[in-house]
């Protein structure tokens, strides 16, 4: 392992690591534009030039690997002068339209200008003009004048998305990023080019002119677009989510996320169910929980717990599902019929987009340990029509692969339909009782992704309207029904109980599996024994008649 000295700090690094990465390990940030850890290094921005002992000139730190005994200066006079010069060169033809640029506030050029250049422009001639506000794709806008030609977007399309729509066209200071003729920047990950753009050259058409970035607060969260569970920064302002940005996680999504997932944030605000509804009329939690309790008790008395359907949503967090499970066990006596609901599956690819469009299907599996006895929501309509189900308590508004109109028609026949959801959708008119749940941006929780990785997400802002987290709604109703055992003061207590329960379940399952295995082995041994016996007998039997058979 090579030893390198960076600004006097000795550090031992892996072989073939670039100087830039070695400097980062030694605690020094080498400014850069074109370098991105997940992409190749073309060394074209010349921002990361550093002084290496015995090298005839400054070397780009992103491109050159370290060698043993290398002595590097990243802040020497010569380096800082070159850096300043590069910034001045970039700004020669840059429009400096920060006041109307969406990137202002998170722009590397701005940051480095204040850190290293901070001088008045010495350029008096007219700047080179290029294309402005050009819709380079359905979701991305390109500004040629702001572009610093780092080619990160081009390399993203070549190396990560594999679609290669972008290229450099023309040369000298007229050079521009363009799509190949007849193409546009329209791939499933095109908005990642906006993330990798160090300046405001590529902007999201969705986020353009929406909010100044320094007003945003960022909360660590998980994308709910599919079961991949991409880690995100949920950027919000005044109780509203403004955008998602991918958050690095090498196990799940690296630095990327898909466009569809990124734009699912819009669902957090459209057509929200914001207050409890009782037969279409706005009610309050205090009276409504009581009437829900009374109605449920009545239904249980009239038809028994077996006639109740509890529909679990794969969109809900593990904690919510766990409370639903406790509710099922303690209130509904483990007799009510359970269903799994969620969004129907959609398109998928080999990278980040999964067919299962629900963030937490694996979470239901984790909470219940096994899914036998839990039906798919597609069968709900049939069960209602058959008369086995009289009452439906449903989380969410999705029917999976089932026929939606059929399900809605069936739900109309229910004696009691309780809807607990973030949105009412077309079920609001059908529901006798509608309970507003809050979105994942408004609560804490855990999602388990397709690979089985449990990932926490955090509360970004207060719940909209009167909505509450699902787990609290279950708790309130249980309380109203006189079961105070479902009483958790904090989410962490729910989590403690949940992890304990799943651990027990896991152990029980293991024991059961071991027992079953043992039983199977014993059975197999017994069977083999019996068979051997039988074979012996039959052999004896066949021998006997042979003797007596007349030839």
């Amino acid at each position: 392992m090579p030893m390198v000295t960076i600004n006097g700090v000795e550090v031992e690094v892996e072989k073939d690591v670039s100087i830039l990465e070695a400097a980062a390990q030694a605690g020094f940030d080498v400014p850069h534009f074109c370098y991105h850890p997940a992409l190749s290094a073309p060394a074209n921005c010349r921002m990361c030039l550093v002084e290496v002992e015995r090298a005839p000139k400054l070397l780009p730190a992103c491109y050159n690997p370290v060698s043993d005994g290398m002595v590097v200066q990243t802040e020497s006079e010569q380096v800082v002068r070159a850096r300043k010069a590069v910034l001045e060169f970039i700004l020669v033809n840059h429009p400096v339209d920060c006041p109307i640029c969406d990137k202002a506030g998170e722009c590397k050029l701005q940051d480095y200008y204040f850190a290293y250049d901070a001088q008045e422009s010495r350029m008096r001639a007219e700047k080179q003009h290029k294309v402005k506000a050009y819709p380079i794709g359905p979701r991305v806008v390109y500004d040629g004048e702001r572009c610093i030609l780092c080619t990160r977007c081009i390399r993203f399309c070549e190396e990560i998305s594999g679609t290669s729509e972008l290229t450099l066209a023309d040369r000298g200071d007229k050079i521009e990023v363009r799509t190949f003729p007849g193409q546009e920047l329209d791939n499933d990950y095109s908005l990642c080019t906006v993330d990798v753009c160090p300046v405001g050259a590529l902007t999201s058409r969705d986020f353009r002119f929406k909010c100044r970035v320094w007003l945003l607060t960022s909360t660590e969260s998980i994308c709910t677009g599919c079961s991949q569970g991409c880690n995100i920064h949920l950027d919000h302002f005044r109780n509203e989510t403004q955008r998602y940005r991918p958050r690095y996680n090498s196990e799940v999504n690296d630095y990327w996320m898909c466009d569809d997932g990124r734009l699912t944030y819009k669902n957090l605000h459209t057509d929200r169910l914001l207050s409890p509804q009782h037969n279409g009329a706005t009610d309050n939690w205090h009276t409504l929980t009581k009437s829900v309790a009374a109605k449920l008790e009545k239904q249980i008395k009239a038809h028994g717990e077996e006639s109740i359907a509890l529909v679990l949503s794969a969109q809900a967090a593990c904690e919510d599902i766990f409370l639903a499970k406790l509710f099922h066990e303690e209130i509904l006596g483990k007799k009510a019929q359970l269903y799994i609901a969620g969004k129907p599956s959609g398109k998928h690819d080999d990278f980040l987009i999964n067919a299962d469009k629900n963030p937490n299907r694996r979470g239901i599996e984790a909470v219940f340990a096994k899914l036998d006895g839990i039906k798919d929501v597609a069968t709900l309509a049939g069960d209602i029509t058959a008369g086995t189900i009289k009452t439906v308590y449903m989380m969410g508004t999705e029917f999976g692969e089932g026929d939606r109109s059929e399900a809605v028609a069936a739900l109309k026949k229910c004696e009691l339909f309780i809807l607990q959801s973030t949105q009412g959708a077309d079920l609001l008119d059908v529901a006798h009782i509608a309970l507003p749940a809050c979105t994942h941006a408004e609560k804490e929780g855990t999602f388990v992704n397709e690979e089985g990785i449990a990932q926490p997400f955090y509360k970004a802002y207060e719940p909209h309207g009167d909505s509450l987290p699902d787990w609290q709604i279950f708790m309130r109703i249980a309380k109203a029904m006189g079961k105070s055992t479902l009483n958790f003061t904090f989410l962490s207590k729910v989590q403690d109980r949940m992890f304990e329960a799943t651990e027990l379940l896991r152990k029980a399952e293991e024991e059961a599996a071991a027992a079953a295995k043992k039983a199977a082995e014993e059975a197999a041994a017994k069977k083999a024994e019996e068979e051997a016996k039988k074979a012996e007998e039959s052999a004896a039997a066949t021998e006997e008649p042979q003797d007596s058979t007349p030839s």
Partner: protein
Amino acid sequence: MEEKFLSRNFEIEKAYNLDIFEEHGGYSTLSKAFSMDTDTIISEMKKSNLRGRGGAGFPTGVKWSFMPRDSDKEKYLVINADEGEPGTFKDRYIMELDPHRLIEGCVITAYTLGLRTGYIFVRGELQHAIRRLERAIKQAYEKGHLGKNIHGKGFDFDLYVHSSAGAYICGEETGLIEGLEGKPGQPRMKPPFPAIVGVFGHPTLVNNVETIASVPFIIERGGDFWASLGIEKNGGPKLFGLSGMIKKPGVYEAPCGITVRELLERFGGGMLDGSDLKAFIPGGSSCAILKPDALDAQMGIETMREAGSSMGTGCVTFIDHTTCMVRLATRLAHFYHHESCGQCTPCREGTGWAYKVINSIEAGRGRPEELELLLDICDSIQGNTICAHGDSLAIPVRSYIKTFTEEFEDHIKHQRCPFKPWRTGKSKSKVSSAA
């Protein structure tokens, strides 16, 4: 009269035809080369002190020895015939008048280094040279100098002509390789050098036309003989292209180490009547400019460096007293701005900015602080770019300002070009009064 080598066939009519070329001893060195050990050829090349004739002056024998000898990968030969530097016009003479000499050199080079395929990357504008080369290659194939089993030695070599799209940057060897691969001519980062990763990711030898055209003579007469023709570390004769305000501009062959004065007086016939030598550029527009007091400098890589410039391609441009140095600098800056590939920041933005500043000085809008700014721009470009294109602007512009500071200051002080009437076609008397 000295013995001629590279320009030997220039005077012979239709020497570009194979039969006439062979009549004058063409392709005779192939059999000698084929009988030699490849290591011997490389050591002869090293002994000859032949320096790359494309401008950088890297010792050719050493470059050859960098080629991996026992690599499984196919190796390529690329001839850099992208001669596009203002003031440089020697390679086209070889390609147009003696194309078979180049082909002969290619075959020997390929044989020595085990190369199976060669490309001659010719500047797109040199249509005549391209046609001559293509015809010569066809003739060579017919006679068995190229193709399968050359001269019955069991050695195969294919040679192709590739016409560039006419970008100056494709004369930079990695830019050339990108161009040859069909991509925009944007130079690559080095290392890896082309000898390791070149065309299509394979080891590649990139040599200039004149360099390879010298190879047959070295094989014929030996490395020591070739070295004896030049001076220390600069072996052999080379072609010198003389241009500017001289009586007999053209391409002349002379040994390395000849002084510029000798080139001017013996070959160029001296300055035009009424023209006084003001300055000269020794080896193409990217070299620093020199004043007449450097006329006795010898044409060699090291000797020219001592004189404060570089030999470059050896094509000297002589400039007389009627030339405005600011306008010359403007013209050069415009060229280097126009030809920048735009890949890396200092060159992309710096060349354009430098051009705009010099242009405003020439147009009479300059400010006193702008000379300092220009030098600053040059310092910031030089050495900080991916390839040497940025340096090609920085070096001459800096030297023009430093050598002719007064002229630049005059432009700024009087807010006009003292040579302007010459440009607008007004009477000549005003020129003399202004100067």
